[in-house]
């Protein structure tokens, strides 16, 4: 005979919120939302985070500028969310895997990927195109939440093979509503897969605010229904994100199973350059979040601790500027594309009809004098 009751006592009754989900932080919400990681953190970590945040911000502004010059098809800026992406990616070991969503370019860059390759999808010369195995970065995923079960499957496979590998999967607040989110978290918990789910709750899914997305007390609360730990963190507090993600990774690595982390942040820019955010939100709200900027917060801490002087500040800015200049230059060169590649990777071997079709295109291109 097993335990006396085969169920724990019923959960307490949750009273759904009656007030609309409040969206505005107070003047200094990070202290409420963050851990005390900022104060406790190692100076080197803080400085490394700082450099990368500055770089990340510059990457965002540069990429957005490139859309205006027609050099990118579209760019979903993560300005304001740099701390989430940079700190989380930095917490990974090299052997670990990252499963980014389309907005997570900075997470990919932080893993060491060539920024131009990261931008392939958004530039429009191929669909992500890069080799995921090089830096263990899965293709930036566009269909929302669909990358989460991939992360679970990969983590599960790694564990079965006895490899000490954890998968970090990123998703947005909107993405948590998709069925794939549910199925992935459930599989992860049942399989105790070494995977960490990080929700960047930036307040919006395009125009839809969080209050229309969920009635849960927090997105982190969703962990409860899967039997995994849920963690809530100030997503603009880089050391806090780093700490919470590191703990979750360690837990996963040591066989403790998955964790769901909600990082509360804000999408400062419109959804993409093609979006017009003034249609659905007010400037004062954005302004409040600007004052809670992740770079500002870190600067304040670093300055307070005497770790950041003008020189250090300038060297970070210079490095970012150099990256931007190189990016600009490389992106301003037209990519050399071979239209025949359209048929190259549909199957391991071209089917008969793909051979026919590629001949058709080759003939057209020859006629146009355009093929290589």
């Amino acid at each position: 005979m097993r335990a006396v009751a085969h169920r724990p006592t019923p959960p307490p009754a949750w009273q759904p919120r009656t007030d609309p989900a409040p969206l505005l932080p107070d003047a200094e919400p990070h202290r409420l939302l963050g851990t005390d990681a900022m104060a406790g953190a190692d100076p080197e970590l803080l400085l490394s985070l700082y450099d990368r945040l500055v770089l990340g911000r510059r990457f965002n502004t540069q990429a957005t500028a490139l859309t205006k010059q027609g050099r990118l098809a579209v760019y979903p800026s993560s300005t304001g969310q740099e701390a989430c992406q940079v700190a989380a990616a930095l917490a990974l070991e090299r052997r670990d895997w990252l499963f980014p969503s389309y907005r997570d370019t900075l997470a990919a860059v932080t893993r060491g990927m060539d920024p131009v390759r990261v931008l392939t999808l958004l530039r429009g010369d191929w669909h992500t195109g890069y080799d995921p195995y090089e830096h263990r970065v899965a293709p930036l995923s566009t269909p929302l939440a669909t990358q989460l079960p991939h992360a679970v499957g990969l983590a599960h496979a790694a564990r079965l093979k006895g490899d000490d590998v954890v998968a970090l999967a990123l998703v947005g607040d909107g993405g948590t509503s998709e069925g794939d989110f549910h199925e992935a978290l459930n599989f992860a918990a049942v399989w105790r897969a070494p995977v960490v789910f990080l929700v960047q709750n930036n307040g919006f899914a395009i125009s839809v605010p969080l209050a229309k997305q969920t009635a849960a007390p927090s997105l982190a609360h969703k962990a409860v229904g899967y039997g995994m730990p849920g963690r809530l963190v100030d997503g603009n507090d880089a050391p806090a994100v780093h700490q919470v993600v590191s703990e979750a990774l360690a837990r996963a690595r040591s066989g403790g199973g998955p964790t769901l982390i909600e990082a509360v942040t804000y999408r400062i820019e419109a959804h993409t350059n093609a979006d017009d955010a003034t249609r659905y939100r007010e400037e004062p709200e954005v302004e409040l979040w600007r004052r809670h900027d992740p770079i500002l917060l870190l600067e304040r801490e670093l300055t307070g601790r005497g770790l950041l002087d003008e020189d250090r500040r300038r060297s970070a800015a210079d490095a970012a500027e150099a990256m931007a200049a190189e990016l600009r230059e490389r992106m301003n060169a037209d990519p050399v594309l071979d239209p025949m590649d359209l048929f190259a990777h549909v199957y391991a071997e071209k089917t008969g009809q793909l051979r026919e079709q590629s001949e058709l295109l080759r003939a057209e291109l020859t006629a146009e004098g355009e093929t290589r």
Partner: protein
Amino acid sequence: MTPATTEARAAAKPATMAQALKRAMRDAMAEDPSVHVLGEDVGTLGGVFRITDGLAAEFGDDRCTDTPLAEAGILGAAVGMAMYGLRPVVEMQFDAFAYPAFEQLISHVARMRNRTRGRMPLPITVRVPYGGGIGGVEHHSDSSEAYYMATPGLQVVTPATVEDAYGLLRAAIAADDPVVFLEPKRLYWSKSSWSPTAPAKVPPLGRAVVRRPGTGATLITYGPSLPVCLEAAEAAAAEGWDLEVVDLRSLVPFDDETVCASVRRTGRAVVVHESTGFGGPGGEIAARVTERCFHHLEAPVLRVAGFDIPYPPPMLERHHLPGVDRVLDAVARLQWEAES
């Protein structure tokens, strides 16, 4: 702004397909309180293509609702709403993002009438912006009509003109069957002198139309490929081929009558669409035309379609999309010499 001033403003300049679609929903909602619009970003934002712009302002959030981000949930909820007597109009944000709702569409939307012996029809319109040519990144340019055509119980409708965009969408919303309403996104901004102040009468669903009369061969097409075919027909005229262009408008039900009447007259046909060729709509169309018109055919019915590949990235899409030249090449292969 009152509807009257909106009208006056819109009437002042040629209307776009996007405006016609919006107007169709607006008029349907005004006439019938059971019409409800729902989807991602359809409310405050008015949809990423602004097709539902102003509906929430005019009819309230309960009539035009921003849903949580979950397509199966949206369509599933629409099923329940339809069960209770509403006429939901669902927006799928892009073609590929309708796939999460596939089970609801195939196993419920298409079958509820049949399952209940006609007691519980589901008058749901599923609007799906489809096709490429707008420089969209992956998953934003699929032509998914083959999936819907292969599903009995669904009507599949797609406008190619501004006027039809209005008329067919009104007809779809009014239909007692579920309709997958495919909107050719690269025609959203195409214009015509159709005036939203004088809505045309609602055309019946299931009727093709001859867009250009001709005698030498028939181009059978729909949606985003109609302009391509009309342009090809103009170019062909210069080479001495007089092409007839048929716009299907409705893939299901299929208007065999109009299509076959044309092909019997011309004796030659090319099916043109942007969807991949293999397993795409063209196979069905070519096969049924051949079955019905075999002895009138001077040449096999040919197909000009997208390649059998995943939709390409923006920088390569022009190589994929069937253009005027490919249509003319196919026309040239219609064995004209055999005739003389």
